[in-house]
């Protein structure tokens, strides 16, 4: 199966990036879990999914094989050309994320995270970021785990790669359409100013909103929100949140309602309770990532 796919894509063009809207991207084994979920959401939430391109799994494996066997000069120009051809100029640059087929497997949880490289602008840097993602599936840690567990003695796998236009997030966070602690049918939002990376890494205490099935906000908890990440032309900047902004909730009720509506739409389209990363920019809600809520995880405030 795998070798057939490799031949197929090799015959076509191994290094073509497909737009996320391409129907093939909806298959997990083709585009990886992260990209496939977003691709399935495009018809339902066309304005909420940032424009994105996918390096399919098969092409990623080819690239990894070339990168392991050949000098960079042999394959780097091809990769850069593919990127320049596919990607329009995006003023905010790109987020380059790995999109593995085994996203929720034990390997992933052991390895922590596959790579994500944010705010990449130059095509050369995008190419480097793509390589970083492609290689993340065969990192030393994952290989060590595979050897130790005896599940696989190969050189590891290459995840597909998702290249998203960066959203200059004014607020961002995560949303769970099921309470991750109690399992209640409530939507729980965490939110901070700026980009969501500090929140996802647990570096700040975000605001928390709990919304019931009727859309009423039943609980709000003010987070300290000491820092925020801002996307500027120079890249990501980590800034202290000015004190006047820390002591108030970073979302209006209408923002909460818009994020909840997006999360519910994701849940309806994907058919499972979602753990969704979202961002608000210019009064628009963007869905950056949506995956199943796997079991009752830890307190979302300390993810």
């Amino acid at each position: 199966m795998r070798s057939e796919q490799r031949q197929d894509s090799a015959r076509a063009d191994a290094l073509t990036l497909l737009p996320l809207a391409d129907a093939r991207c909806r298959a997990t084994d083709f585009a990886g879990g992260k990209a496939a979920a977003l691709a399935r959401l495009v018809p339902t939430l066309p304005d909420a999914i940032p424009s994105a391109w996918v390096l399919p799994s098969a092409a990623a494996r080819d690239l990894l094989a070339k990168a392991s066997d050949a000098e960079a000069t042999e394959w780097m120009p091809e990769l850069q050309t593919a990127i320049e051809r596919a990607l329009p100029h995006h003023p905010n640059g790109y987020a380059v994320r790995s999109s593995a087929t085994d996203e929720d497997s034990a390997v992933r949880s052991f390895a922590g995270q596959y790579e994500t490289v944010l705010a990449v602008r130059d095509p050369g840097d995008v190419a480097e970021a793509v390589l970083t993602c492609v290689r993340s599936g065969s990192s030393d840690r994952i290989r060590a785990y595979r050897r130790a567990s005896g599940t696989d003695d190969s050189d590891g796998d290459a995840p597909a790669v998702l290249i998203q236009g960066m959203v200059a997030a004014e607020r961002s966070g995560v949303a769970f359409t099921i309470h991750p602690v109690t399992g209640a049918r409530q939507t729980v939002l965490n939110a901070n100013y700026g980009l969501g990376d500090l929140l996802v890494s647990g570096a700040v205490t975000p605001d928390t909103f709990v919304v019931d099935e009727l859309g009423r906000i039943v609980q709000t908890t003010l987070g300290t929100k000491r820092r925020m990440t801002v996307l500027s032309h120079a890249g990501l900047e980590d800034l202290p949140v000015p004190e006047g902004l820390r002591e108030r909730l970073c979302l209006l009720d209408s923002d909460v309602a818009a994020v909840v509506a997006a999360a519910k739409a994701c849940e309806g389209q994907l058919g499972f309770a979602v753990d969704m990363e979202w961002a608000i920019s210019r009064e628009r809600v963007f869905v950056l990532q949506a995956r199943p809520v796997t079991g009752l995880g830890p307190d979302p405030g300390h993810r």
Partner: protein
Amino acid sequence: MTADRGTDAEWITAVARPNTPLFLSFLISGQERAKIEEHTGLPVGFTHIRRRGIRLQYRADEIAAAKQAITELRERRGLALFEDYAQRCLSSCAAFLRRAKQLGIVADGAAATGASREERVDSYFSSAIAHATFLQTMILMQFELETFLDEFVADHTAGESEGERRRIADALKLALEPNHEIVNVTELLELGRFVQETVPGHAEWVTVDPADLIVRIASEFPELWERIRSYAERFGWMGRSYYVGSPTTSADVVLRLCDVLKDDCTERLRRAATNRERQLAERERAIAALGATAQAEHLAAVMSTYMHLRTYRLDVFFMAHELMVEVFREVARQLGLSGYEDTAFLAWQDITAALAGRSETVELTEKIVGRRGGFEFRATAGATEWLPTIPSAPSPAKRATDGATDTLHGVTGCPGQYTGRVRIIANAEDVRAMEPGEVLVTTMTLPSRMAAVEKARAIVTDEGGMLSHAVLVSREFNIPCVIGTGDATERLRTGDIIEVDASAATVRVVSAAAPDE
């Protein structure tokens, strides 16, 4: 300095400042008579200092003796005394800044200076102590220089009215080199002008949530964001005062920018420039009225240096410490403290002893926690005793019961009239809450309160000196200013409507705020 009304007459109370233990430990280490004499060449000094509430107190007899000594020197040496002293202060400031730059640039760079962290901290402390010697002396020198100026004007303007003499003396109190606070406001207005001239749709910014605006400017306006970042880098130190608080960041600058954008920045800059030209012209006329002699020119130049030095000398302390911030972060880590700011609540001797392994984290933490809630100390010749905190009794209400007759008297800082709403500024929270167009009422203005000054249409301070910070800034921007009211911050309340007649140096309450405001 104002007399401490109604308490121990043996003590003189200096203006209230948010001093921290570390800053005071530099100051009082330099107060021994011999050190002051060595570093300033002046036979003055203070062997007894104490702190009550937020006010430092000096012994009245020592202040009197210092004043006497300075007066005698002035009679003997004339203007040369002031010039020499100012030059000494300026070169001392420069040397201290240079030292801090050498010591602070590389955070963990024993290799950079060839010195260990302990040695670098020691060296910084020594430099700060040497530099600190003239803090109190400086104020006395300024008073004496004003006396000298008044006498000079009286001697050279026979037949002029008292008012005309006052005008001539005032016109000479102009800093030719703008100080950091003025540059700070001017450049913010220039940022505002840049936005108003080059950004279409900026008029809507006032309706955008500030948090959104930070992100939008960063991602959509690269050139403006670079300007903002560079501004924040240069003036970041102003956000802290006396080593506590947060440095100004790009995000804070955006919030301040939102405020200035409510005005026409080009017009405000034009007014400031016109005002400056008028002041310079008045200064020229004053020199002419004094006979346009070399001596008059010389006096005006020395006066201008003092106007600059007045704020510069304190700014240098904060700028230098900001250069050392990484070093003090490491010191805090090494000593097991919770962060940089904690070091501000230790005396330099505490830090030195702890770095040498002579005290435990727990002892330091106790000191920090205790002093964060307020502190008192008693410094006598050669020894400083930190006393347990005595909770300050609530000050008796000084508010007049009959608001209509409540008039405060002070000194004209910058002439003019304005009637508006009072905003008492005691902390950073008040600065943020202040609305453009209000009257800034505070104990004294500080660099960290510039965000309030730029919103103010009039300024009223408790503090006394004619060469004070508030005067400098208000004159530069032509904001009516009354200083030296003694207790405006206690007699007025946020929300009161007051009529500031700065030309007459009075402040009258038009209507009092609702009692619960």
